[in-house]
């Protein structure tokens, strides 16, 4: 069957199988940032935004997104520059292997759109479905808190202190 949808603003018209999952279609189209990691709705590495809201592409039928808009992590860096969230993750050492990061970025971007001033608890709650095996999450929480501050204009980029210690 044929479906049409937009990915990061670009229109795609694709022939798909009836039971095809969005992660499969997106990877086939070259959006390789969308990861197969657990395939049981249990880790968040396949997260994309569907009409602005984070969903799991490993459990979304492609047939169901006909006419909708999808945003992957590729959609967040304008003209090659990193988004505030991406920069903060990088600066805070919140990226280790990086495999969970695309899913984390699209979810965190949605968080900050919904809630520009999240508490630490709200950050963790919103992102609880995004597993990371490398970092222990602490650096990611610091990074997203910092990104929120930069987005609100209460903290300037690179104003952070040394990362050593507590």
């Amino acid at each position, binding site marked *: 069957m044929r479906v049409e949808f937009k990915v990061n603003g670009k229109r795609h018209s694709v022939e798909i199988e*009836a039971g095809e*999952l969005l992660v499969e279609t997106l990877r086939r189209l070259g959006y390789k940032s969308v990861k197969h990691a657990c395939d049981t709705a249990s880790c*968040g590495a396949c997260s994309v935004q569907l009409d602005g*809201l984070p969903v799991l592409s490993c459990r979304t*039928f492609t047939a169901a997104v006909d006419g909708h808009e999808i945003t992957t992590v590729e959609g967040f860096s304008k003209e090659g520059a990193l988004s505030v969230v991406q920069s903060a993750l990088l600066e805070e050492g919140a990226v280790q292997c990086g495999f969970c990061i695309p899913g984390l970025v699209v*979810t965190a971007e949605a*968080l900050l759109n919904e809630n520009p001033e999240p508490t630490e608890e709200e950050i963790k*709650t919103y992102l609880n479905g995004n597993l990371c095996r490398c970092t222990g999450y602490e650096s990611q929480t610091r990074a997203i808190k910092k990104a929120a501050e930069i987005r609100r204009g209460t903290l300037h980029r690179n104003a952070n202190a040394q990362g050593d210690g507590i």
Partner: protein
Amino acid sequence: MLEVKEYLKPKTVEEAYELGILPNSLYVSGGLIAAQLKISHLERLIDLKSLKMDEIEEGEFVKIGANTKLAAFMKNPTLSKLNNGFLEKSAREIGSTQIRNMATVGGSMAFKLGWSDVITIFMTMKSQIEFYDGGFQRVPLENYIKNGKRTQIVTAVYLPKSTHFMAFEKFAKSTFDIATLNLGAAILLENGVVKDATIVVGSRPMISERIREVEEFLKGKELSNSIEEAAKLIEKVVKVGTDMRASAEYRKVLAGALLKKAMRRIYHESGIQS
């Protein structure tokens, strides 16, 4: 990829039902559970989202269309405020942001999963469920989970309006996990005395069930004085099983512990209210 021949988007509930009664058909709403099934010989997926059914209407009951996402429990102003924010607070315990953006109310009922938090929550609210199987019917959720059939299309859930204080408690190993046991309590109070109570235990690991002995026990009792006894009673009467997550013996303990937490929470909230 799920091996299936067709993905259909019927325009009316009648049309959907005609397709649904054909052999090897499966309805899809959020898609979360359907995509996880390992069914061979599946012929067609019938997407119910094209039927809309995502309205939230307030009348004698609050009507929630079956395709309403669980995220609406937190985001919809009507739903998030019900019973002192019961749905809003409970929703935080379900799945994850992504899952709440995908899973629908109807889908959460229709698959009748033993570990469902949503069923426990909605049974606690004494919901009725509306489905279509050639005609529309409305039955208590409690009956639906016992007798409902796969071919029936869940179209809406109706929540009766009430002034019950409600609490949902979930015990799980991880905060991103299904319940080892969950429990819902709805209690109507008059001067600190229980007028009416609904106590539901789910993920036993069998599907959610009302614990009527405890409901009856509580009626007429002063809430604050009956917590320990109610917990002892529920440990005695609740029917539970053993699986990889816990033994039956431990689930009984959890039922008691969660009931105590729920009753204490209600006691606390009712104090703030009055």
